[in-house]
């Protein structure tokens, strides 16, 4: 039987390999920027001294670790990314980077970021970073995402760890305050993603990802969004009791939380009316602003405290 063999050089010639920009895209830079911001909040809000150089190394390692998990997520999900409107322009579906290259890239950066954080800054922070990467790639991407509508509820923990890692980088510990920062992002994730899923449910349905609107319907999703919004706003007030948040945080948490609840209520009340999709988009956009401002106030309060002494 005749066998066709292709030499390594010929194979390489057919696949020119990705440009540097494609590898940067594998790191999901937009997600990375939110991770850096929340990790910075954890770093500065934690009590105790922190050398600026160590803070920069910690942020860099956390950012690279988060990016690496994004690359591993794109490697595993390349088949569904190719069929979803939102993700089909990513480097692997476009054929600019092979899945094997993305997997190697993600693994090397994962290991490198954890070791760097451990050796230079703190091993508890490094262990939490390793847990975050493993949770996002193995628990969320490989296990939950295609199996249960609770995928983003449990998987959301991965996105909630960065402030806790930042806190551990400063103090070498996990405390009730760092758990509160974790909980705020953890409870914010379901309303944020389900608002998007309500608008993109066709995309998810086509590729067989059991997002809540696909499995339980839009009405149940709106009800769950409202439920998690109430929990989120309740937990967002807890830093006032522990002292993590000051007066400015209290004002921001109440005002922003009221806005969040109002939009969640309006979405729930909209039912299947044509303006329901607009309400979902509004809540999705507002949820990003909400988390950013809430963490910005914590960051600002603690940065001022550190400067004033």
């Amino acid at each position, binding site marked *: 039987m005749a066998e066709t063999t292709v030499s390594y050089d010929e194979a*390489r*010639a057919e696949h*020119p*390999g*990705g*440009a*540097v920009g494609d*590898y940067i895209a594998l790191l999901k830079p937009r997600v990375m920027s939110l991770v850096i911001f929340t990790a910075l909040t954890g770093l500065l809000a934690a009590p105790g001294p922190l*050398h600026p*150089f*160590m803070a920069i*190394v910690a942020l860099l390692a956390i950012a690279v670790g988060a990016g690496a998990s994004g690359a591993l997520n794109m490697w595993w999900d390349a088949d569904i990314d190719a069929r979803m409107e939102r993700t089909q322009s990513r480097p692997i579906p476009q054929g600019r980077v092979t899945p094997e290259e993305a997997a190697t890239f993600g693994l090397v950066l994962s290991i490198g970021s954890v070791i*760097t954080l451990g*050796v*230079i800054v703190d091993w508890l922070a490094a262990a939490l970073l390793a847990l975050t990467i493993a949770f996002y790639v193995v628990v969320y991407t490989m296990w939950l995402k295609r199996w249960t509508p609770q995928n983003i509820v449990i998987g959301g923990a991965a996105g909630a760890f960065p402030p806790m890692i930042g806190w551990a980088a400063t103090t070498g510990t996990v405390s009730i305050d760092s758990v509160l920062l974790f909980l705020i992002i953890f409870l914010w994730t379901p309303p944020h993603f389900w608002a998007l899923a309500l608008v993109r449910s066709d995309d998810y349905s086509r590729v067989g990802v059991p997002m809540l609107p696909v499995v339980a319907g839009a009405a149940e999703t709106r009800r769950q969004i409202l439920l998690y919004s109430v929990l989120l706003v309740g937990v967002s007030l807890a830093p006032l009791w522990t002292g993590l948040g000051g007066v400015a945080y209290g004002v921001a948490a109440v005002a922003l939380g009221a806005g969040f609840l109002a939009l969640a209520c309006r979405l729930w009340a909209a039912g299947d009316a044509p303006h329901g999709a607009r309400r979902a988009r509004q809540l999705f956009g507002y949820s990003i602003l909400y988390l950013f401002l809430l963490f910005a106030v914590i960051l600002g309060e603690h940065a001022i405290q550190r400067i004033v002494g």
Partner: protein
Amino acid sequence: MCEPKGNGLAQSDEKERKRRQRGRSIAIALVLGALVVLFYAATIVRLGGNVAKRAM
């Protein structure tokens, strides 16, 4: 008349492949250089003034 056009295309593919490879090589070199600087600086920061204070 088609052949030269085909060769031209292959040449431009090869040129693009080399351009990307060069970009990746430079990026890897920069990252490795940055890591050397990072670990050197971390060593200095961690040592701090302790070297000067050590018992003789």
